[in-house]
């Protein structure tokens, strides 16, 4: 019986999660193209099937059947290793994010999280930090000036924005008093409403760091197409390019999932106590709303210059987050 609980159930959960995530990624590209089209007063993809719903499948087939090219003068091992190192952490982030309440299936209590660990938030930070390697190594191994510049930009951008992000996270965690994401969604002692509102004040700043950490427009400096051709992924094609592409969208999903869990109550919503399955839909809806924010930002905000990005981080975001954390600490102790 033990191996069912320890190995079989987590394995099934992981497989389901990965399948859902990869399908979600495919239709996220459709969602984005459709939305961007509307933002720019176009119709967007509408050729394949109804509403262009066949486009992601066609894209996937095209990517898989393209010729694999490894350019000469690249570092062959790292060139192939790069995309793999990028996508694995992006998938691992979801291991600790609770996507729903505990379900009762086949007479078993099944919590809808792959790993309910005490260090949940730290796990997310650690794994997200590892995600940098895929991009940096891919860019370096390409042996191309544009790729190298993209990789260097990635590493400094990630390192810089990790600081305000981590400090804002510390402030939020001070309020919850735990690192376990399951306990953050369902706190043991209720969080007073003014502290919940106070947390929400941090969300705009946190959202900016999220944009920078995921390398999304308007902060897509690792791959700025008008300066660096395609940045770190210039030399990549076919399925290896697709892996980088997936990584970007999985990062969006992961960051959205974490933000929803931290700031907007995760899978909680009306009537969840009566019908636990509703939690899944609430979580999906909230993540989708967060993804919409990402796409909205990319459609409406122009890209700043690279030095402006770093200066903004170090001279504005970093001090603000420090002050916010100090005030939060005082609030938590006093109130």
């Amino acid at each position, binding site marked *: 019986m033990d191996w069912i609980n320890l190995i079989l159930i987590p394995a099934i959960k992981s497989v389901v999660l990965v399948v859902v995530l990869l399908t979600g990624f495919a239709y996220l590209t459709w969602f984005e193209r459709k939305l961007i089209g509307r933002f720019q007063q176009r119709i967007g993809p509408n050729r394949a099937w109804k509403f262009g719903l066949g486009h992601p499948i066609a894209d996937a087939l095209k990517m898989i059947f393209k010729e694999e090219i490894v350019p000469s003068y690249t570092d062959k091992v790292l060139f192939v290793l790069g995309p793999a190192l990028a996508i694995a952490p992006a998938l691992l982030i979801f291991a600790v994010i609770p996507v729903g309440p505990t379900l009762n299936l086949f007479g078993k209590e099944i919590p809808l999280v792959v790993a309910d*660990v005490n260090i949940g938030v730290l796990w997310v930070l650690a794994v997200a*930090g590892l995600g940098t390697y895929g991009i940096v190594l891919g860019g370096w191994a390409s042996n191309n000036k544009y790729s190298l510049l993209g990789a260097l930009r990635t590493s400094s951008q*990630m390192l810089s924005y990790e600081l305000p992000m981590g400090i804002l996270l510390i402030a939020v965690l001070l309020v919850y008093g735990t690192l376990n994401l399951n306990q953050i969604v369902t706190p043991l002692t209720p969080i007073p409403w003014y502290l919940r509102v106070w947390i929400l004040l941090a969300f705009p700043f946190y959202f900016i760091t999220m944009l920078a950490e995921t390398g999304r427009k308007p902060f897509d400096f690792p791959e700025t197409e008008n300066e660096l051709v395609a940045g770190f992924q210039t030399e990549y094609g076919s399925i290896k390019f697709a892996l980088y592409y997936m990584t970007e969208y999985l990062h969006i999903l992961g960051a959205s999932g974490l933000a929803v869990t931290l700031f907007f109550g995760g899978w909680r919503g009306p009537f969840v106590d009566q019908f636990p399955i509703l939690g899944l839909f609430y979580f999906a809806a909230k993540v989708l709303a967060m993804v919409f924010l990402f796409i909205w930002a990319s459609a409406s905000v122009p890209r700043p210059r690279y030095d402006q990005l770093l200066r903004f981080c170090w001279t504005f975001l970093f001090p603000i987050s420090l002050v916010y954390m100090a005030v939060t600490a005082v609030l938590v102790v006093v109130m």
Partner: protein
Amino acid sequence: MFLFIVFALIAIVAGLGVILSRKPVYSALFLLLNFATLAAMYIMLQAQFLAAVQIIVYAGAIVVLFLFVVMLIGGGELNAVDRETSRQGDKANIASQRSSIQLGWPRLTALVLAVLLLAGVGYGVITGQLHQPTGTAAAFGQGSVEAVAATLYTDYLLPFEMTSVLLLVGMVGAVVLARNE
């Protein structure tokens, strides 16, 4: 025990890879692998928090910085595309080999220090001073964040604060060095 042997072997191979790799980038990556196996061992010792911090600090920040420096300052270039520059690269290689031959004494010092370190560790292992368990993981709250923080801010408050001052000194020193140029 089986898992420990697996991770220990990976750690040793990775450690050898760090010092035997020709390319600095590979050295840094082997170092990363080494840190990852260390984190796995922390988890086997029930110290989840330490494992996470190990990954965040070393893998997430320090090795990234190593890579950044290697890529920015050089020493990690791949083969140049045209022949002109590759010939220059060969000359540079020969020059660096010469300078490494001339710099014989640091290697000697390193060897002496390594032998001293081995002797010290060996002495500790033989006399049994190195493995005296002072408490089980359960007694230490399973290495949770609360347990680590409580110990850090009560029993080890002074060393902790001293370390932060040390880091501050290092930071100020780096700024001063950078300004001088």
